[in-house]
């Protein structure tokens, strides 16, 4: 099950579309599980790593995936080789991920792009890595062609995530 927790206010119709896209992509249930408040001391732009660490416990089963959705900016991460633009972040092969809708113009028309961001982060929680196929949702988000793609996986990522979900269930 994919549980979406909102840190800010979102249109319920949009959230419904997002859950539908995630259900189609992963083949597991997805729902909006309610709002949560950002932990104290977190200011915009959020540090995605600290946010994931500091977020309070939410009710979820062990094999559930938890996606925090925010409309505030996530600060670019400073890494050893440079600065990485951050549209979302996930704990690999773990439970938690965060995605921002900042940078998506006219969210009502571009819910597909938000779904694509969300798919990538949830894909990371299932252990997927970045993909070589520009049409795949696991392609790096900072490439210019990413925003034009559909909210789908390539065959390889689709098979990998299916296998992961099957092994998690059993």
């Amino acid at each position, binding site marked *: 099950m994919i549980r979406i927790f909102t840190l800010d206010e979102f249109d319920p119709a949009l959230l419904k579309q997002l859950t539908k896209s995630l259900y189609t992509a992963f083949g597991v249930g997805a729902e909006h599980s309610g709002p949560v408040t950002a932990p104290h001391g977190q200011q915009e732009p959020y540090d995605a790593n600290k946010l994931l660490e500091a977020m309070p416990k939410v009710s979820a089963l062990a094999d559930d995936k938890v996606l925090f959705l925010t409309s505030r900016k996530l600060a670019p991460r400073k890494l050893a*080789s440079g600065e990485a633009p951050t549209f979302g972040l*996930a704990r690999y092969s773990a439970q938690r991920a965060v995605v921002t809708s900042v940078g998506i113009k006219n969210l009502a028309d571009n819910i597909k792009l938000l779904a694509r961001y969300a798919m990538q982060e949830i894909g*990371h929680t299932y252990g997927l*890595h970045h993909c*070589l196929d520009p049409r795949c949702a696991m*392609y790096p988000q900072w*490439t210019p*062609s990413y925003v034009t793609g559909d909210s789908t996986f390539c065959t390889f990522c689709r098979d990998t995530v299916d296998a992961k979900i099957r092994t998690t269930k059993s």
Partner: protein
Amino acid sequence: MPDMNSLAVGDRLVYPNQGLCTVTEIKTEEIAGSKLTFVSLVIIETGAKVKVPKEKLEKNGVRRVSTADDVKKVIDYLKSDSEKASLDWKKRARDNTARLSEGGLIGLAEVVKGLQVLSELRPLPPKEREQYNDARHLFVEELAAAMGVTPADAEDAFDILLFVPGKERPKRSIEEFQGMGEDGDELGMDGDLLGLDGDDGGGGSEESSSDEEKSEDGESEEGGDEDGDGEKKKKPAAAAKAPKLPKGAKPSVMNDLEVTAPAATALAENAPKKRGRPPKPKPELTGPPPPPKKRGRPPKPKPETTEPPPPPKKRGRPPKPK
């Protein structure tokens, strides 16, 4: 890098093709009268337990997690425009397997970058796509442990070098991959697979030297009827190569008028011998051509009889007597 002699419980090691593992126990056991020191490892990702004799750790390729210097070298390598992956799939597969098992962190980086650059030329086949994913997974895991960051940050740290932000990946051409000291076959197939032998003179391959082509031309001058088609095909290739001669140099190939009998025999002697049975000489035709043979069994000869033919037999049951 410290060697395997100074191992302690809790140390993190890298098991080739398996990933990070932790030393859980170092114990000396007596087996068949000899004392052996065993190191128990737990692979972090899967939780699998491995018990290896201490002497065999290095032989199995087990090594310590890379240091910050290694990470710096890897980042420099990823930034550089390194050499392209081999187009010969057998060589590539052999190299990549060796790098994954004993190449260390830089070996993993080479596999990831090599296959990624190759994917800019053409999509990877499923087996290599899987190998790419495995290499990426091991690379991310070790890089995260070496840098002391989360795997997400480790992956993005090298992906912003491979997929530059704000830029699309370049499209590669086959020319960039050629000239790597190999045959440069587009399909990645060896000559052996295609059935082309280098020493087969009659092959007429494109790679044959100009001298060989000359001799083939000489041979085709006096060749039988069989080679007519082949000759027609070879001529444009020879004509295409003709302008490559240096300025002022006379072409050494004689044309039809210049060929004299001794020269032709000399050319024929120099020409490589054809393999296989020579063609049968055709008989000279004197009369009109015979009519084409009818296929199938010949019809039976009809018996000559004077009696009228018997009436045809009535079929079915004979009528009941009244």
